[in-house]
């Protein structure tokens, strides 16, 4: 399969990239390309211009800034998965990164590319919702920060404006325990259902608990019903099982040949329960 013809641009600075994005009609941004190029090969996407961010080291970093870990948008999944800093400060993010695709995909695919592509079955969104992350977008008009809860607006749709680039992901240092569990599609490895839990457990009771789900609806979401059912409750298997029943509440659950809506909703409850149990177990 061969993509349709396009013009190729490889900026070396952010300003240059932003100018290209503002000036070129029908342009797509190429990060790792592991979502975009398959779509172009299938001719589901045929942009006139590709702006390749592959040679912008200024967008490839992981660093600590106070109580936040900042990741450049072009940081690869492998860099996230293998980073000592991420492993120490936001292990939930490293765990989610380690389940994306396979080794070859993680070597090339980027966190920014994945988020901007906004596949409803991607792994990162669940973790970033549970961690309370935010995204930094830049355009010739300036920089702005978008909370993870406001970033995903629909199927393959985000809050990014046409002239904005996602340049950084900011993740607060993880408080308490975490776990990411997914039921991968047996062929694609994408999450049929993926659940990320960030939980503070003290004295055998839940403090702050956040639960992010991906794959279930058209956008990733925080399971408010689960979170409120757990607040202040004992960290017991019974309380967890009861709360996990709320995982698909209020969501128009995806329905396809592999996983009909009722089965997917069932998986959402089961994986929410398992991820909560694992997070509690890890809390010690």
């Amino acid at each position, binding site marked *: *399969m*061969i*993509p*349709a*013809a*396009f*013009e*190729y641009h*490889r900026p070396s600075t952010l300003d240059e990239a932003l100018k290209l994005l503002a000036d070129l009609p029908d342009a797509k941004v*190429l990060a790792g*390309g*592991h979502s975009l*190029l*398959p779509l*172009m*090969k299938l001719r589901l996407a045929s942009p006139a211009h*590709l702006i*390749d961010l*592959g040679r912008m080291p200024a967008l490839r970093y992981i660093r600590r800034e106070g109580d936040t870990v900042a990741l450049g948008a072009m940081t690869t999944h*492998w860099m996230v998965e293998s980073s000592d800093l991420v492993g120490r400060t936001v292990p939930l993010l490293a765990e989610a990164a380690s389940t994306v*695709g*396979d*080794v*070859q*995909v993680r*070597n*090339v695919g980027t966190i920014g590319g994945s988020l901007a592509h906004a596949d409803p079955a991607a792994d990162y969104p669940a973790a970033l919702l549970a961690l309370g992350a935010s995204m930094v977008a830049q355009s010739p008009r300036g920089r702005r920060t978008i909370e993870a809860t406001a970033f995903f607006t629909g199927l393959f749709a985000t809050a990014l404006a046409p002239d904005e680039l996602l340049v950084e992901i900011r993740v607060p240092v993880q408080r308490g325990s975490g776990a990411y569990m997914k039921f991968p599609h047996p*062929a*694609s*490895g994408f999450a049929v259902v993926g659940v990320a839990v960030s939980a503070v457990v003290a004295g055998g009771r839940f403090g702050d608990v956040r639960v992010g789900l991906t794959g279930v609806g058209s956008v990733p979401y925080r399971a408010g019903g689960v979170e409120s059912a757990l607040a202040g409750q004992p960290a017991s298997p019974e309380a967890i099982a009861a709360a996990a029943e709320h995982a698909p509440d209020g969501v128009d659950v995806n329905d396809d040949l592999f996983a009909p809506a009722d089965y997917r909703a069932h998986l959402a409850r089961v994986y929410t329960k398992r991820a909560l149990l694992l997070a509690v177990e890890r809390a010690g």
Partner: protein
Amino acid sequence: MNHPITVTVNQRVHQHSVEPRLLLVYFLRETLGLTGTHVGCDTTSCGACTILLDGQAVKSCTVLAVQADGSEILTVEGLARDGALHPIQEGFWEEHGLQCGFCTPGMMLTALQLLARTPDPTDRQIRHALDGNLCRCTGYQHIVNSVRYAARKLRDADPPESQ
């Protein structure tokens, strides 16, 4: 509009002018004639087209040749030196790691990536690392054995420093 690219493949420098939409695997196979890198599924799933791009295992059906400009590439043709098989090739030979052989180049290059990161992998780590490479013949056990063989051989050749 074509773009000039310079890539070093198996330690040889190549300069070509390529169409931006040319995929790296077709650049290797058709422009350079290095047909050891196979096209299997053409959808980033099977791993038959895996090469090392600047030391990282990648699926060359999902990379544009222009993205590889300035890079160093290792393909299966670059493994043997002076007529002697690379330890990973020797492993596949000795442990019967292939039947039809179609997946083998990609398997070996992905395995090399694993051994560079994890010189003494467990069977579980080997299987996890080869998650992106499909084999429809062997049932994988002989491939795991082959990688274990190569790991031992590479460690013997380059033992880790003692303290």
